[in-house]
């Protein structure tokens, strides 16, 4: 008893000293956040035996579902509202009481919209599988009876054709359960001005709408900067993981005269088009014993499910013809990293990285996809024998730390392709493609070099030792200049998919090893799979628009717990 009292006094004295230290030092807030300054308190309490992890949700096992029972839903392109009077739109606000605030659209006069689309975020119903109950989800588009189209809309856009997308938030204001009925829809990888980017801190509530101006403008007006496969999702600060898990996901495909969605056009790339160009949107979920999608609200490291969905369905089938297809693969997470191969180990061609066409196709038999990454592949089902082939995930991933690195054999089949009859194929054999999209020339003048260290900080997540504050600008980048950014994994064995908004980058090296021509990462990218202990050096240039953008981990659970920084593009000196 005596011993304990002495202990108490010591503890209390130290608490008092700690407090005095903080006050005496008169440190700024940002200094205080830096842990090291507070760690000088002498001997701390001896390691004690707080015991093992046995989180309840980690043990949840989804009900059994019958594989290959339902067809793969194919996202259909959203049609514009052609009766809308485009002259009613302007750079500024529309002056309507239900419009959310935003800055005026930049470059409006140069990129006046030629089409107007409307999407409505709303609670609708969806069936992930016929063995599970139809249940409410949140999404962007539905039928008139309010049943959802999952992973829709798909927006088909074209360079040279600016559009406005009016995004109305009609999520249930009195919602109960995970998710928050605020929204800020981010168009991932788009070269959009900050006010149309869907910044995490620019959210608006139910009952309001916002007009997003998508210029569909080439960065620097360089055709080699054309983007291809983009996606959009809710990005509400602190709640991105929950809202995306509820279903707020869609895709956006950008065409130009070369990547023209017409495989017969001899002036184009002649990639499989129309019904043979199919987005495959992967999600990771777990369902409770009632068959309802379950979100662990008490996870800080990541959400790892046991059912993977493809375009919203668990283990669907896809009746394909024996010819080439362009499959656009997107991993929406929230936290699972994927590695794909076909069950018959057939080769395919990777033609893009993060949705941007590569200099030329690369033949391979497996592909890695971290959260938010996209790849387009060309698969020739004419080369497959038998009646079916499966797309497999072979990467073991157990918790939010990241994949274990173990390749599973055979892995989990995610999608079954039923091989149908041979069909006419107007697309070109990728082996015969010498050149797809060239890479833009990089500046030789580098205005600034920065380092971003991504770290775990007592269960939360930091960038350069700092926790996200929407009002603190962590980097000011001068418009029209290039910089070198070093992304470093702060350690602890964690993997992070790191994403920066707006500008793509070029990976120059990983751990000092240069990325060379012919490598799949010799490409324009917007997500980095940052392995444990890794340092990745990238080149990035800031063009066309000014404003605020985030840089964050796309394990959205990490992101929601502060693994985000803010960079601003400024028409002034960098700092």
């Amino acid at each position, binding site marked *: 008893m005596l011993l*304990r009292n002495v*202990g*108490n006094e010591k*503890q*209390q004295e130290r*608490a008092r000293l*700690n*407090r005095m*230290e903080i006050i005496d030092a008169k440190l700024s*807030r940002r200094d*205080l*956040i830096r*842990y090291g300054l*507070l*760690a000088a*308190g*002498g001997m*701390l*309490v001896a*390691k*004690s*035996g*707080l*015991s*093992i*992890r046995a*989180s*309840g949700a980690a043990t949840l096992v989804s009900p059994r579902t019958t594989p290959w029972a339902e067809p793969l839903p194919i996202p259909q392109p959203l049609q514009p509202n052609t009766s809308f009077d485009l002259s009613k739109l302007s750079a500024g606000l529309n002056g309507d009481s239900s419009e*959310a605030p935003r800055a005026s659209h930049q470059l409006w006069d140069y990129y006046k919209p030629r089409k107007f689309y409307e999407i409505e975020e709303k609670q609708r119903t969806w069936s992930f599988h016929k063995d599970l109950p139809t249940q409410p989800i949140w999404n962007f588009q539905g039928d008139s009876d309010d049943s959802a189209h999952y992973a829709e809309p798909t927006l088909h856009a074209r360079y040279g054709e600016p559009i406005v997308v009016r995004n109305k938030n009609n999520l249930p204001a009195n*919602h*109960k*359960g*995970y998710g*928050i009925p*605020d929204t*800020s829809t981010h168009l991932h990888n788009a070269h959009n001005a900050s006010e149309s980017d869907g910044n995490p*801190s620019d959210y*608006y*509530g139910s009952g*309001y709408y916002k007009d997003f101006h998508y210029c569909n403008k080439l960065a620097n007006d360089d055709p080699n900067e054309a983007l291809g496969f983009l996606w959009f999702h809710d990005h509400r600060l*602190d*709640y991105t993981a929950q809202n995306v898990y509820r279903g707020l996901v869609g895709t956006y495909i950008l065409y130009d005269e070369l990547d023209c969605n017409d495989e017969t056009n001899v002036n184009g790339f002649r990639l499989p088009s129309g019904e043979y160009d199919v987005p495959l949107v992967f999600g990771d979920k777990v369902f409770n014993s009632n068959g309802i999608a379950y979100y662990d*609200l*008490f996870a*800080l*490291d990541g959400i790892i499910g046991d059912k993977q969905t493809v375009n919203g369905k668990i283990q669907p089938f896809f009746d394909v013809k024996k010819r080439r297809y362009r499959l656009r693969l997107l991993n929406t997470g929230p936290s699972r990293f994927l590695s794909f191969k076909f069950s018959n180990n057939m080769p395919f061609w990777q033609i893009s990285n993060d949705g941007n066409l590569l200099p030329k196709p690369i033949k391979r038999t497996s592909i890695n996809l971290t959260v938010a990454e996209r790849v387009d592949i060309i698969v020739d089902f004419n080369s497959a024998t038998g009646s079916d082939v499966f797309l497999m995930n072979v990467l073991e991933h157990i918790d*939010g*730390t990241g994949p274990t690195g173990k390749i599973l054999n055979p892995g989990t089949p995610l999608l079954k392709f039923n091989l149908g009859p041979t069909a006419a194929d107007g697309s070109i054999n990728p082996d015969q493609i010498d050149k797809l999209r060239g890479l833009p020339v990089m500046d030789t003048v580098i205005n600034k070099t920065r380092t971003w260290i991504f770290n775990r*900080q*007592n*269960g*939360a997540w930091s960038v350069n030792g700092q*926790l*996200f*504050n*929407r009002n603190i600008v962590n980097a000011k980048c001068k418009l029209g200049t290039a910089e070198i950014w070093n992304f470093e994994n702060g350690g*602890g064995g964690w993997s992070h998919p790191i994403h920066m908004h707006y500008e793509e980058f070029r990976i120059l090296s990983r751990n000092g090893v240069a990325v060379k021509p012919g490598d799949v990462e010799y490409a324009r990218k917007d997500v980095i799979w940052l392995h444990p202990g890794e340092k990745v050096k990238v080149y990035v240039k800031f063009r066309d628009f000014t404003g605020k953008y985030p840089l964050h981990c796309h394990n959205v659970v990490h992101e*929601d*717990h*502060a693994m985000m920084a803010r960079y601003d593009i400024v028409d002034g000196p960098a700092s």
Partner: protein
Amino acid sequence: MTMRRRNFLWGSAAVLGGGALGLGGAQVLSSVGSLAAESGDPDGVFPNIVLTSHESRNYRFYDDLIRGKKVIFNFFYSGCGDICPLSTQRLVEVQEMLHGRVGRDLHMYSVTLQPELDTPAVMRGYMETYGVQPGWLFLHASREDIELLRRKMGFVDPDPELDADLESHIGVVKFGNDEIGRWGACPSFADPEEILASILTIDPSPAARS
């Protein structure tokens, strides 16, 4: 770390935990005893353990502290030199920024990770040291109940070595609104205005416009 090594560490951590309970737990907790978790909420997330406050009042975690309430909670221990001083300082600032809501329609709880040492008297001293205002409860329970609570609330590190180390405990503040089932978390050493903005998302109708 290999699986074998992990298993080994998990085993030793469990042994240590039991030892600590044997040493210090009994006297402090004799009034309430150590209760096996009873499911509090319909989903079974919140264990209905009994906690004792700095005022020596007993509360059931779910029934008395969570059910139907808007809450903010974290874990602390008064002897913590690394994480808690700044976290508590931040939360004191947040309490001030909440202008008297704490204890009325918003409830703040800090649960000790060292229940043997953080007696009600020690917790009162800690609160005084930091200038904690009324309405914010500091709580302890038996070590094993706290351990259960900690795990259920996700204040865990997947690396068992780190998880077993008090010095590297989770510095996160959890906030939620049980009535509507909305829960979020943010680092407890974030800037107070960011913590406040995060916490205010548990009001059923957050700001209609940003």
